[in-house]
């Protein structure tokens, strides 16, 4: 055990030019200072502790992406309801459903780097929610057309990769409207 441990320590030991070392002498001294302060007066010690650097807080996800994801989930629920009610239209509706699921996954991936973790409560509809009304073909077509316009507007208001993702989603939703004609 001691041989293995000493070998591991040797591998982990910083070289003479290493910029990163373990806890430095200064760290231990500061830590000792905190301990003394806490002992002397908890309030001062706590304030000192709070001044220590924290991990950076991820920026909030862009509102346009969150709104787009919510819109995709609404469309997924509408198309799923139509699929259940009109199995004869499965060939068309299944494609549309799959596209919207792909959009939702892409938006979740675009949102994820900005948040600590995706909000599990926000993913698929809770089972206790009432089933959405079953839209007719004309209503679905209108919803897809409206979604295409909204996504294009969100794309225009965004920049970089998010803008291009929304632009492509907009184009796809226009093809859905075509498919439902």
């Amino acid at each position, binding site marked *: 055990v001691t041989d293995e441990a000493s070998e591991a320590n040797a591998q982990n030991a910083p070289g003479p030019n290493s910029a990163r070392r373990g806890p430095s002498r200064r760290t231990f001294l500061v830590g000792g200072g905190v301990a003394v302060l806490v002992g002397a007066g908890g309030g001062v010690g706590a304030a000192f502790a709070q001044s220590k650097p924290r991990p950076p807080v991820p920026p909030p996800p862009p509102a346009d992406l969150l709104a787009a994801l919510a819109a995709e989930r609404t469309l997924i629920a509408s198309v799923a309801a139509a699929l259940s009610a009109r199995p004869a239209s499965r060939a068309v509706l299944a*494609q549309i459903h799959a596209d919207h699921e792909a959009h939702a996954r892409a938006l979740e991936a675009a949102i994820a780097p900005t948040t600590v973790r995706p909000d599990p409560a926000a993913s698929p509809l809770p089972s206790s929610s009432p089933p959405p009304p079953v839209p007719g073909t004309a209503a679905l077509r209108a919803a897809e057309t409206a979604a295409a316009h909204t996504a294009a507007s969100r794309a225009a208001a*965004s920049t970089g990769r998010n803008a291009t993702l929304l632009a492509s989603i907009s184009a*796809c939703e226009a093809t859905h409207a*075509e498919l439902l004609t």
Partner: protein
Amino acid sequence: MSELTDAWQAALASEHRAAFGYGLLGAHLHGSPQLALAIACSDAHEALRDATEEAITAAGLVPVAAAADYPDLYPVTAAAQAAALAVRVEDGCAAAWRFLYSVAAESAGVSATRLRGTAQTALTASAVRATKWRLVTNPSMATVAFPGL
């Protein structure tokens, strides 16, 4: 500006290719129910090509010329191949306009904003036309989730 210009010229080049492609495939659709669709698509691409040439010229640039030939579009010997080629040229245009959109989305300025509008319209139009042709070639896979990707 040069990357944006290159992407704009590439979008024009894709429209040149589409106009050539529809001329090639249209000859195999006489008597076919898809002939009217091919003519409408061809007209749309020629109009977009002309408008793009004018806009590039108005920006003080020399618009890229059409190639003398597009060997990658051959062979087309039957109506089924013609419809499949239509899907290919539409996908090519969608990719080019989507790329222009992505470059413009990284750029600042009035011209970049205007080009994003043009690129969105053209991307959507090609995606919709591609879906019309996929309904002929493979109706169970008539859409793609991310046109132009």
